[in-house]
């Protein structure tokens, strides 16, 4: 049917917003090894890929359907355990034969996906009966239950030391035996692309659209004739599946899974990734996963209070930038392209300077305080400037910077409102 006025996006626009980003991602993933990354760079990127899929699967719940879960690592962990057991079956089947002899380790994330779907279907049935805050608390309780079960059922979860496997078995799909880390990169890159593309495609399906409608106005969805509880349940199952797929990727990458991976700590981390990146945007969790994974592997080495910084960053995002990093990037881009960019630029520059000042003051206070408690007698001396814990100058300087920065931020905020 052709209408005279086509109000929808043009073909070029559709291509630019729906296909082009995925092509760009594929090209980036293919080109990265050409830059000749080091071993540690490879292992970091593998972890980023796993966390991107995990954070996106989480955002199917938080960002797309408006369900806040505190126990998403359960599906990641169960999928990962399924994958690691499958790897062990492949190993034994290499000698004994059978179905698993023909199954490549490369395809193990599919097993993770299936287990995740199964777990989502079983656990989601009682927990999706409630929405909003009760759902969040239920997810927490269920996560505690499964995590404790992980330590009790040794034959499945391997007790404290977990279950380990070997990825260099079975038939090498695409000629990858997955021995070297650069080969694992291709495995991770492939599944990251599959996960991102599939979850992006999901947002365009009728179910994905209805999920967003449930998030925005569940009552109205019900009025139109859909069952919000059913839609939440279906999305929950799929989200569990993709989390399980990320678990399967992780199983091949690390060749071990421990019951800790089911616990509240990774569940909290994936929430932080999705939210700091920007839960309202599809690309947000990708940004968040990349940033937090990078920060975790680099910052946690020399900043003892890295979780404190993470908490502060999270609270700042919740309070002042609910759109997360993606929201900030988008509003900067919009602000520069729309009229009146000069005034906005001055405002942002001022806020940036004040924010940096407050941050430097805060970091000095935290770092000096950490060194006092840990009692190594080491003096915090970034860039050769020593901040002695006993000298009053340290505290006065840092405190003044913090106060000045915070009041500067407040002044600019008031100024922005006045304009």
């Amino acid at each position, binding site marked *: 049917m052709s209408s005279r006025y086509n109000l929808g996006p043009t073909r070029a626009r559709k291509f630019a917003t729906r296909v082009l980003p995925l092509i760009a991602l594929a090209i980036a993933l293919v080109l990265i090894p050409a830059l000749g990354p080091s071993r540690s760079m490879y292992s970091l990127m593998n972890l980023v890929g796993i966390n991107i899929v995990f954070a996106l699967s989480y955002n199917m719940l938080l960002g797309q359907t408006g369900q806040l879960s505190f126990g998403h690592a359960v599906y990641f962990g169960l999928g990962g355990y399924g994958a690691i057991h499958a790897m062990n079956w492949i190993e034994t089947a290499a000698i004994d034969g059978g179905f698993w002899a023909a199954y490549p380790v490369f395809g193990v994330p599919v097993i993770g996906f299936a287990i995740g779907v199964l777990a989502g279907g079983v656990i989601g049935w009682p927990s999706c009966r409630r929405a909003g805050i009760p759902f969040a608390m239920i997810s927490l*309780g269920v996560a505690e239950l499964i995590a404790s079960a992980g330590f*009790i059922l040794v034959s499945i979860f391997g007790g404290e030391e977990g279950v380990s496997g070997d990825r260099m078995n079975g038939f090498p799909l695409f000629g990858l035996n997955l021995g070297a880390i650069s080969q694992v990169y291709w495995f991770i890159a492939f599944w990251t692309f599959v996960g991102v593309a599939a979850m992006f495609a999901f947002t365009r399906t009728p179910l994905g659209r209805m999920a967003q409608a449930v998030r925005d106005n569940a009552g109205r969805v019900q009025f139109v004739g859909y069952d919000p509880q059913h839609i939440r349940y279906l999305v929950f199952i799929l989200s569990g599946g993709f989390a399980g797929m990320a678990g399967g990727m992780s199983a091949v990458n690390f060749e071990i899974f421990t019951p800790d991976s089911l616990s509240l700590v990774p569940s909290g981390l994936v929430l932080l990734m999705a939210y700091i990146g920007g839960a309202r945007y599809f690309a947000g969790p990708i940004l968040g996963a990349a940033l937090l994974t990078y920060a975790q592997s680099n910052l946690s080495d020399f900043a003892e209070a890295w979780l*404190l910084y993470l908490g502060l960053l999270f609270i700042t995002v919740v*309070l002042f930038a*609910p759109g997360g990093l993606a929201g900030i990037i988008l509003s900067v881009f919009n602000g520069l392209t729309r009229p009146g960019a000069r005034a906005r630029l001055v405002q942002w520059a001022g806020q940036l300077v004040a924010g940096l000042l407050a941050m430097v003051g805060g970091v000095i206070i*935290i770092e000096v305080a950490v060194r006092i*408690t840990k009692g190594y007698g080491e003096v915090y001396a970034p860039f050769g400037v020593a901040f002695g814990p006993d000298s009053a100058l340290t505290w006065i300087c840092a405190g003044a910077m913090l106060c000045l920065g915070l009041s500067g931020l407040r002044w600019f905020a008031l100024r922005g409102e006045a304009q």
Partner: protein
Amino acid sequence: METLIFALINGLIYGLLLFMLSSGLTLIFSMMGVLNFAHASFYMLGAYFAYTIGSVTGFWVALFLAPLLAGAAGAAVERWGLRRIHANGHVAELLFTFGLAYIIEEVVKIVWGNLAVPYRIPAELNFSAFELFGSQYPAYRIFMLFISIGMLISLWYLLKRTRIGLIIQAALTHPNMVASLGHNVPRIFMLVFAAGCALAGLAGVIGGNYLVTEPTMALAMGPIVFVVVVVGGMGSLEGAFIASLLIGFLQTFAVSIDISFADIFGFAGLAAGSEIGRITIASLAPVLPFLLLVVMLVVRPTGLLGEREF
């Protein structure tokens, strides 16, 4: 018989301690719709404050000062944090308190260190209260029982028999009307939040030396308190009371039952040496509240006394 009586008293004490935590959480939730994820962190702060104050002034001053300080911290959080994002909805508020729980835990680690602090039962209370079936019963537990019952009675009296309680109850259901009558509703909210945090702090003061005062104590207690609130029915104080006692008894009884699955399901052919058969009821005690949560959700999704759907 003696296990039964000991389990009864211990369960009652643990249940009342849980109620001290969950009553504040429930009050805050039913009034502001905020689920304070950091509630157990104020419990931890109470214990640490009591340890530090107590090492200077002794336990009795700390018993009063530490909850007040925890309450003041709660008031500050409400005034400068929660109030700002109230307009962004309840999920944003929940996320804010979630981040706060991270921050409080890390700050506690920086100030008091990663390991447990030696917060001990005061010498005045470190004797045995009575002898029952040949075992000594510590006086401190009886003291905890009295503090908890005192808290329970004063909370009930405050809410049901005083003018302030009347205004708080009115603000729960009709905040706009209460504001029209000239009451400062945001300030009432702040006071309730502070009072809830102070109750959690009190639980920390008397629970911190009974259990262990360490940076993970908030994470260990938090989920159980949430279970209490969901099982009792979101926003129902009476429900929270029943659920607290239920979970208190459930956990203490489970610890004292030393039979395994094989003993129970042996008739169905479960071998004593098998993995499932070896699991004892006692080892399941930490999991039982969460099992109760799942069962409750399947049977009665609104909780014991919950009427409202949130």
